[in-house]
């Protein structure tokens, strides 16, 4: 049974189709990322689920209750949907405890606030004011505030975009463990593919108001359904080729195919599938530049016929700019029909 369901939901702003016939299913306890470039409709989708926007058509249901549909309008305050805003939106006039207690009713408020503070690891900060907290702490309080009333779904809008890069990885790990501990069903919006792939159980990639593909991160990376997704999710090289059944011939020779294809195609080659060999014969490329990252390195190569590609190699390999190498492809490749 899915906890959250969007069925053919559409919303226009003027002449722009912000959300165009989207259908989504999210299971209880799942952690789903909406990934896409800015303006693709991912934030609007989130706001539709929260109830801040109303769909022109389609049905949204939470826990089998229709919250938005024809003649049905459940307001945000009646949806039991928690939201963590991009800028956190902590109430500046309330202290941390006041913020967390904001959505709570009844007598055991105090107890629930303490639970939440413990969950996010900020028990000593109850009396602090929001402006006295660091960005990471503000975010954890925003998380605690949204989780306190035990919402059915938790929505997070670009949750890590306000943190600087150094802090981001650490906070990401913390947030995931907090959310997994709370058992909440979460949907978060991001434009950062690394964030989506590393955090989510499932990623929905959005382009132009539509969900282009929804899959587990690994599958999304290894089996993108089209060229756009392939280049948006991870880095990609494309080479023209001629497929015949289980192999394809292209600039880098005859390569095995992961799925059978035929005719003129584009061959997707991930940078880490390229191997640069320092052999003496059949030198078909030259190294143009090199970026060293520590755990690995990115290398720009120029094939003899003028096509440039990007390769990744582990950090131990030693290359110099201007060096000539032999380029090979490991493993089976995927192709897309040429448009």
């Amino acid at each position: 049974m899915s906890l959250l369901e969007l069925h053919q939901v559409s919303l226009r702003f003027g002449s722009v189709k912000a959300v165009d016939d989207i259908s989504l299913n999210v299971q209880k306890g799942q952690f789903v990322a909406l990934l896409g470039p800015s303006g693709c409709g991912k934030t609007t989708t989130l706001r539709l689920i929260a109830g801040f926007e109303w769909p022109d058509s389609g049905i949204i249901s939470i826990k089998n209750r229709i919250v938005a549909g024809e003649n049905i309008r459940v307001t945000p305050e009646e949806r039991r949907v928690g939201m963590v805003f991009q800028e956190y939106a902590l109430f500046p006039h309330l202290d941390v405890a006041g913020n967390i207690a904001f959505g709570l009713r009844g007598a055991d408020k105090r107890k629930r606030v303490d639970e939440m503070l413990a969950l996010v690891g900020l028990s000593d900060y109850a009396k602090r004011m929001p402006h006295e907290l660091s960005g990471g702490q503000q975010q954890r309080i925003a998380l605690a505030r949204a989780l306190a009333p035990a919402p059915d779904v938790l929505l997070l809008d670009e949750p890590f975009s306000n943190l600087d890069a150094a802090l981001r990885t650490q906070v990401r790990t913390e947030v995931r463990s907090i959310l997994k501990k709370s058992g909440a069903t979460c949907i978060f919006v991001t434009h950062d593919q690394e964030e989506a792939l590393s955090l989510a159980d499932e990623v929905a990639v959005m382009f132009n108001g539509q969900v282009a593909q929804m899959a587990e991160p690994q599958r999304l990376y290894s089996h993108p359904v089209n060229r756009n997704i392939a280049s948006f999710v991870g880095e990609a090289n494309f080479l023209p080729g001629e497929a015949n059944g289980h192999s394809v011939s292209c600039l880098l020779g005859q390569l095995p195919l992961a799925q059978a294809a035929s005719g003129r195609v584009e061959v997707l080659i991930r940078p880490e599938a390229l191997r640069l060999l320092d052999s003496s014969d059949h030198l078909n490329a030259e190294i143009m530049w090199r970026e060293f990252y520590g755990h690995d390195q990115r290398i720009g190569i120029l094939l003899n016929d003028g096509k440039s590609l990007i390769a990744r190699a582990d950090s131990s390999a030693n290359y110099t700019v201007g060096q000539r190498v032999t380029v090979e492809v490991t493993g089976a490749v995927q192709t897309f029909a040429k448009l």
Partner: protein
Amino acid sequence: MCLLDGLLVMTIRTRFTGLKVISFLIIAVVSLPLIYLVLRASASGIDGINYLLQPRTLTILSNSILLTIAVVIASAVIGTLFAWITTRTNLPMRRVVLILGLMPMVIPSYIGALTLVAAFGPVGYLQQILEPLGIRRLPEIYGFFGASFAITIFTYPYFVLPVRAALLGMDRSLEEAAQSLGCSRWQIFWRVTLPALRPSIAAGALLTALYTLSDFGAVMVMRYNAFARAIYVTYNSSFDRSRAALLALVLVALTLLLVQLERRVTHKAQTYRAGKGTTTITKKLRLGRWQIPAFGFCAVLIGIGTLLPIGILLGWALNPHVISPIDMKLGEASWSAVTTSVLTAVVVALAALPLAIVARRTTSYWSRRLVNLTYIGNALPGIVIGLALVFFGANSMPALYQTLPLLILGYTVRFLPYGLAATGSALAGVNPAFDETAQSLGLRPWQRLFRVTIPLTWASIIAGMALVFLNTMKELPTTLMLSPIGFVTPATRIWMASEAGMLALIGLPGLILIGLSCVGLAILLWRDNLKG
């Protein structure tokens, strides 16, 4: 070590020494009359203390405080509601309603109060309309009710502007967060919106309180014995003028207390902001069945505060029977007011320049403190400044008493803060890096002044001068107390005409002054646009 440091700093800053001396002289000239007032008042010793402890003085004090409290509360409620309706709802014709609703700000309180009396007073227009219905008496307009009613009508815009700015700048996600946490519309307003508006409302409250304490026109017209009126009446009627000075001193103390409070609040308001909050609220609340009450509220407000005064003035101005010999003096009065106002604007701009430079460009604590002191003049009621200069002129410089120079000095003391604010903010807008860039490109100091600083600041300085000009044109109490015999401005013409009961003569000068204030408001908005 400390001495050495001081010497070093002195040497670096020697080029400011000349300016500092000039600034000090200006500050001395500006503050001398006030110091003189204090000395004069305290010279009355035990007598003075006895006078201050009389029931009459305490009544004046409680009258002023009561009036201030009533006006602040009423203006806050009306102003906040009006700002909210015109910013957040889908009220039809919002922009027109907003502009008309801000208009009372440009109506000088003495003119506004006179028209309110004409409308709602005894034998007023409203009573004439109601007479056939058998209503013989309207509630008394004079006194507490009339004064607080008039001042409220003409001060609620002081709340509308800051509250509207706060509403427009508010982070949309704050209210959405509250909504997703289960709050209804009403709860959101009380638990999130109103607390976010608190600093703006506090700022508006203090501004309104200062205005109410210093207001002269409305309390005179409404015959309410608050400080401004009591001081004027005492000054005019008794031989012992030090009593007026004593009352003025209490008013100054009250004012300084409020100024101090204001600093606290604005300081607090600055630390209030937490996140950057980029998303602003664009969605309008659908009024639905509330549309008619909301529109009615705005209509009544605009009707009383804007349409009624302007309509009555128009009616008076167009009255065919007004062309009397006295009115021929209006042209003359306008001309003398224009010349003195231009002179004042120039004097203020010249005085403000060295002060602003010293305040902006040196780091010396005392220089800044001294310059800040002149800002207090902004809060001092015109009646107090007028009184101080009367004492100062009559006793220390009899040659200057009742001359144009003393009047212009009075205006300068009163309006120097405007000039200082304009020049100061203009200088603040000049990034020091511009000056340094010019320096590194080989420009000499005077070249930098003419090619960098002046091109970047002239618009703002001119705008400040225009504001001083317009406020001088409108100024009533200072003019009443300091003008040479026979010197008349449109403001004093209105005053004389109203005292003589010749209301019809008020029409034209009243409209002229309102027109001038509109120009002033336009300049203020223009300057803000330049800044933003």
